[in-house]
Every structure is written in structure tokens, then in C-alpha cells.
């Protein structure tokens, strides 16, 4: 049996979530088999796409058959495929977890179960559309789909804190979109094209207008990716949201915005990644890394700790920009993408497990979490594995990613950035270690009739964490045989 064509798979990946969401919403029912079937189908499509890309490399698809500057293109790149794949895995895990988490809860939770899946699918569709987009304006619309779905998901519980966080997130997101659109306007005014490849071919790196445009695009995306000075909205939004939502947001939505930064700076804007630009982005990253790490150390509530760790981890990811200033960019891009993939899997696992632990303990305070006992043991196992991946212990995916970046840093003699990376890893080690230490060495007894933890609440997190750990080996192969990954990211 031959696999469906790449074009067909892309169409499935971008339209199926939207169609399924519309159908679920319109029918007003939530047949769980149907939603899970859609999620499974999407996962298979992503896997098949990964296989195709592995065989064929980059492919470009014209929408509507219109050629470049007039029409819109989809570009299936290796890094984009990794993101699509990770999205599918996290999306599936989240759907299963969500189905279990919102099940059998009376009152407003019943409403949450009803709207969770359509919103989740919308976010999924928006993410998939982002990862294949190769057009500045199309990205804007896809970003809006993603942002609006995420905002609605944050507000899902409709509690005051959640609403506040959602409002702040919405404003930050819209601010980001607006600045991004300004950048689009400036670049369009300069070159009259929106297509990535056309833009890359025409880009005049010395031109002031183009520089202003690039800055605007970047600032817009920085706000959406919650990079250091613009991170203020993230901890609230991720910390206050329902656990499956936090997993999606932290693992994928923020990562998508960051992925777009990578995509732009290693694609159409590659010529502009000079010493100044790269260093500036790196400094922002270093700030995020330290600030987020220190605040994560100070948190007393589990989900807030995990949320601040996101700020810190994306600071780490920002360090790819200074490393890519000179020399070979492919390993840097590969490292950055793998870092995102690792973070997506591990952080999603961490949030899902955190949700389970909070439910099992009846409290969010780190000191009052139940210990390594009963079924909560499995959740703790997921936390430990995910922590290992986040810290970057071998043989996790996090290790492969960091190893790639470290190698580059060493080969370039970038000791300064190397130091920051090590500091970041130590910080990660410190706050995750503190979490494990507090909880496992001094566990609280937990509520007397322990809440039922169904497999849906345990298995997804565990599987994601295992995947983050195990795929490191594969990723090394994937990377070190070189060509596969490197076989031409367009524009680089």
C-alpha cells in the first residue's frame, strides 16, 4: 500500500481539524469516538507526512494552482514536519487526557467538556496551517486562529482568574498580531510580495524599510512567544488554565510562535541575521532564561512553576540566533527545532502530569502534593522523565538538541553563550530538582478517599514523557547522518 501524496496529507492536516471542529460545534454533541478518531487520523496523517518528507525532502504546493507572488504556497519543510508531528502527538495526548479530565464533572465542567474539543481542534488546525505556511499574510490569519482558540481555551473555566489571564493574553496576542501586520505592511510596501521565497530572493539587507519590517515582524512574534520583556502574560495564562489547555499552550502554541521566528530568520530574513541582530536576540534569550528560571525557583504552586519554566526554556531556545550568526546554520536550525520538539513533548507531559497530581492531592501547593504512591506514582514517573528531558540528560531528545547547540558554540568559540547555556541547564536542574525533592522526600498524605485516577489521566503524560526521552537516540541518527535534516530548508 502506498502512502497518500504529500499534498493530500497536507490538505488533511489543515482542513480536517477545522471541519471536525465545525461539525462538532454544529451538531452540538461530543461523540467521544468521533473526536478521538479525528485526532488519531490527524496523527496518522502527520506520521505519514513525516515519512514522505523523509523520502522526498522539501515540497511546495500551490493553493488554487496560482503561482508564487499572486497565490499562496504551502511549504513542507523538515523542521515544519517535526513540528507537525509533535503537534499531532501532543494534540492526541491532550484530546485523550481532556476527554478523561472533563468527564463526569457536573455543573460548569459539563459545558467545558462540550466546548473543549471544538476549540482544541481549531487550535490544532491553526497550528498545522502555521507550520506549512510560506506566506506572510497567511501566517497572520493562521496566527489569529491559533491565538483566539488559545484565549478561549484559557478562559474555559470562566473563573475570574482565568478570565483575567485570558484577557491579558488576548491583549498581548492582539498587540503581537498588530505589530506583525505592521511588519507585513512595510515589507509589502518595499517588495510587493508576501511569499517567503520571493521575499528571500528580493530582500535587500541594507534597506531601512526592510529592516524596520523585520524588526516589526520579530517584535510581534516575540510578544506571541512570550520572550523576555514581553513574557508578562504567559505565567498567568498557562498557570491558571485547565491542565490539558496548559499543556497545549505551553507545548505547542508558544512553540509555534517561536518556530515562526526560526522560520523567518533562517528563511526569508536569513540575510539580516547579522552580529547585532543575533546578539540582541540572544541577550533577550539570556534574560528570559535567567529571569524565568529564578522565578520558577521561587514559585510555590506547581503549575506556576511549570509555567515559569516555559519562559526560561524559550529563553534557552533564543540562543540559537547568536549561534547562527556565522558558520554553518543547518545544525543550529536542527538543534533549535529539536529543542522545540523536546520542549513540546516534555512540557506537555509535565503539565498533564501536574494536572493529575493536583487533582490527586486536592491542592496546587508544591508542599502538599501526594507522594510517590498509588496511581499517582505513574504521574510522578512522567514528571521525572519529563524533567530529565527538559534538563537535557542523555539520551533524551533534549540532550541531542542541546548537544548540537553546544557543539556549535564550542566550534565557534562562543564561550559566552556556552556559559549561559550551562547556567540555564543548571537552573532547570535546580527548580525541577526542588520540585522533586519537596514532593518526594516530604510527601503530603493527600485527601482521605483518594480521587479516582483513570488511565486517561495517566497514560498520555507518561507516553509523551517516554517519547521525549526515547526519541533522543533516533534524533541523533536523524541528525548525524546529516543530509536528511539538512536537505535544504528553503531560503537557507
Amino acid at each position, binding site marked *: 500500500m502506498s502512502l497518500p501524496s504529500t499534498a493530500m496529507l497536507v490538505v488533511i492536516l489543515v482542513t480536517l481539524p477545522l471541519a471536525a471542529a465545525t461539525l462538532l460545534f454544529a451538531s452540538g454533541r461530543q461523540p467521544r469516538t468521533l473526536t478521538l478518531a479525528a485526532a488519531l487520523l490527524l496523527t496518522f496523517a502527520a506520521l505519514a507526512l513525516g515519512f514522505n518528507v523523509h523520502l522526498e525532502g522539501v515540497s511546495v504546493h500551490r493553493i488554487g*494552482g496560482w503561482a508564487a507572488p499572486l497565490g499562496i504556497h504551502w511549504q513542507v519543510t523538515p523542521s515544519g514536519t517535526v513540528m507537525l508531528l509533535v503537534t499531532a502527538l501532543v494534540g492526541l495526548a491532550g484530546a485523550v487526557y481532556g476527554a478523561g479530565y472533563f468527564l463526569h464533572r457536573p455543573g460548569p465542567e459539563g459545558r467545558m467538556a462540550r466546548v473543549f474539543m471544538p476549540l482544541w481542534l481549531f487550535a490544532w488546525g491553526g497550528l498545522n496551517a502555521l507550520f506549512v505556511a510560506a506566506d506572510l499574510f497567511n501566517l497572520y490569519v493562521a496566527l489569529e486562529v491559533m491565538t483566539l482558540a488559545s484565549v478561549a481555551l484559557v478562559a474555559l473555566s470562566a473563573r475570574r482568574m482565568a478570565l483575567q489571564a485570558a484577557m491579558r493574553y488576548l491583549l498581548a496576542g492582539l498587540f503581537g498580531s498588530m505589530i506583525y501586520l505592521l511588519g507585513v505592511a512595510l515589507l509589502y510596501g518595499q517588495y510587493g510580495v508576501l511569499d517567503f521565497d520571493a521575499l528571500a530572493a528580493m530582500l535587500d539587507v541594507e534597506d531601512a524599510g526592510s529592516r524596520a519590517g523585520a524588526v516589526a515582524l520579530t517584535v510581534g512574534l516575540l510578544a506571541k512567544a512570550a520572550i523576555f520583556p514581553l513574557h508578562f502574560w504567559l505565567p498567568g495564562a498557562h498557570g491558571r488554565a485547565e491542565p490539558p489547555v496548559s499543556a497545549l499552550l505551553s507545548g505547542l502554541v508558544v512553540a509555534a510562535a517561536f518556530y515562526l521566528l526560526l522560520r523567518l530568520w533562517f528563511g526569508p530574513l536569513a540575510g539580516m541575521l547579522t552580529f547585532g541582530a543575533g546578539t540582541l536576540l540572544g541577550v533577550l534569550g539570556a534574560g528570559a532564561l535567567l529571569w524565568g528560571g529564578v522565578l520558577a525557583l521561587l514559585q510555590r504552586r506547581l503549575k506556576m512553576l511549570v509555567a515559569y519554566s516555559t519562559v526560561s526554556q524559550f529563553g534557552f531556545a533564543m540562543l540559537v540566533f547568536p549561534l547562527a550568526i556565522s558558520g554553518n546554520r543547518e545544525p543550529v536550525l536542527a538543534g533549535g527545532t529539536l529543542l522545540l520538539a523536546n520542549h513540546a513533548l516534555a512540557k506537555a507531559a509535565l503539565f498533564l502530569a501536574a494536572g493529575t497530581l493536583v487533582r490527586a492531592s486536592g491542592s496546587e501547593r508544591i508542599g502538599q502534593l501526594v507522594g510517590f504512591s498509588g496511581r499517582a506514582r505513574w504521574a510522578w514517573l512522567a514528571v521525572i522523565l519529563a524533567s530529565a528531558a527538559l534538563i537535557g540528560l542523555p539520551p533524551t531528545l533534549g540532550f541531542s538538541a542541546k548537544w548540537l547547540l553546544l557543539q556549535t558554540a564550542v566550534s565557534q568559540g562562543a564561550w559566552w553563550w556556552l556559559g549561559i547555556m550551562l547556567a540555564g541547564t543548571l537552573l532547570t536542574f535546580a527548580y525541577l530538582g526542588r520540585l522533586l525533592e519537596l514532593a518526594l522526600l516530604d510527601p503530603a498524605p493527600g485527601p482521605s478517599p483518594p480521587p479516582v485516577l483513570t488511565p486517561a489521566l495517566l497514560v498520555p503524560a507518561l507516553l509523551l514523557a517516554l517519547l521525549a526521552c526515547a526519541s533522543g537516540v533516533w534524533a541523533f541518527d536523524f541528525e548525524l547522518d546529516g543530509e536528511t535534516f539538512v536537505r535544504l530548508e528553503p531560503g537557507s
Partner: protein
Amino acid sequence: MRAPPSPTASDPGNGDGLMHPVEITFDALLLFSMVVLAWQGVHARNMFRAVVSFIMFGLLTAVAWVRLEAPDIALAEASLGAGLTGALLLATLGRLAPERRGARRPKVVKLSTLPWLTMGLAGTTVLLAVTLTLPAPGLGEAVLAAMPAAGVDSPVTAVLLNFRAWDTLLEIGVMLLAVIALWSLGQDVLASKPRLPAPALPALVRLLFPLFVLSTFYLLWRGGHGPGGAFPAGALLAAGLVLALLAGAQVPERMRGAPLRWALGAGLFAFLVVAVGLMWAVGTFFAYPPQHASILIAIIEIAAGLSIGVMLTALFLGGEPTDIKGGGK
């Protein structure tokens, strides 16, 4: 009297600065009042004043689009800006607690605004300096060249529903998503039973309603060959429905629930069916066969227009109209 608009005679500033002083004065005054109103809309001490200023800002923006030779946008701005945005803001204001409505800001100029102001001015200057140098080549010629195969005569509609139809699909998705997002926040939030209005109001709505319906169709028809199309048409339909709601009508019980939700989803669904159907039939996503392009676009346009009308009404309502007993009547 003048069949086609002559591009040179009265055309403001297209090309080599042939603008008449009256035109320049007009533009200057227009933009000046827009800026003043924008400032008022953000900073007016009284919240109501801010909202009214913002609505007027929308009115003038529509005129500005006309001056920029963008009648399509002017239509959309007129129907969305003057109609629904204003209604939405005024209705929101009515739902805020009275003491927050007036929310006076302290008069003292905070020191912290000064750096922001400086930065803003600097940013403005940079932006202006940059934008003035832009050559702006654009895709005008590419669009013109592709028009014969587009299936419609209006370039903007061709871009929206053919060349960049994927954007438009996602955008309809954003709108549906907004409705779902609002519904996910809980039920219809109309606070109290609104009193029946003066008899003049239902009379007005009864009179205008058929006109709203008629002009919705008119704009849909126009969209094929001139400024118009699904957005302004949907906005007009929504305005008609919202007016009826304001005049005391209720969402009919047999429309609540599934029929309403299907109507909301219909636009996106039609888009998806056509796009994927073409993938299946032609082999390329969203590739209209030229001989069927106009009819397919018309189908999408009608479905999207009606659906947009319902979606915008739902956005105005701000919540799912399920609470029949508590809500109105």
C-alpha cells in the same frame, strides 16, 4: 453622467502630485479629525464620550477609504464599523456597572507617560520616514493578468475568493471561533429583561427589515463585479437582525440549538467542502476549473454572506441564546 471613473481628472495624488489644493485641504482636515477622534476614543475622560468618539472615528475612516480609492473597504468599514462595532461597544457599555461607565481618569499627567510619548513620537517619525521611501511595487499587474481566469470581474473579490481564498477560509474560521469562544464563556449575558420599546422603534424595524434583506442580496450580487461581497452583505444582514433584536424580537425557539449552530457553521463548511471537493475532483486544493469558477464562487459567497450575518449577530448577543426563561420575554 460619467460612465467610468476617469483615473486622472479627480484622482487624488495618484502619480505626480496633481492634487488640487481643495483635495489636500480635505484630506488634511479629514485626517486631522480622525487623529483627534482617535485620541478622544482612547483618552476621553468619560467612557461614553470615548465610545462615541470611536464610532465617529469609524465613520470618518470609511470616508478615508473612499479617498484612498478603496470602495470595497469603505463598504466593509461602513457596514461593520458604523453598524456592528458601534452597537457592540454601546451594548458593552450598557452592561458595565454604572460607576465604571463614567470611569474618569485622574487628570494628573503621570510622569511615566513622558517616556512613552517620546518613544511614540520617535517611532512615528521613524515609521513615517521609512514608509515615505517605500517604492510599493505591488501585485496589481499580476492580479490584472490573472483576472480572465478568476471567475469574477471584481479584482478584490477575485483575490479574496480565488487567489487568496485560503486566507479567507481561515478568516471565516476566526469568526466562527470567536462565536464559539463567546459561547464557551457561558450563557447569554443580557442582564435584565429589557422593557418594550416605544412603538416607533418596532415600526421602524418592520419598515427597514425587508430593505436590509434586499440590500444584503444586492451587495452579494455586486460582489461579482464591483465593490461588495460577502462581508458587507453579511454585516448588513447582521445589522438587520440586531435591530430586530433591539426592537424586542427574540431568537425564535425553533431556531435555537442545532439550526442556529448549523447556520453559524455553514460559511466555513461551504468553504471547506468546495476546497476539499476541488482537491478530490481536480487534484489541487482550491483550484476552481475556470468554467465553473463563477458559480462556485457565487455559492461560497452566498453561504459565507448568510453565515457571516448570523455569526455577527451571535457576536453581538455575546452568548448562546438558550436561557429562554431567564433571558427575555
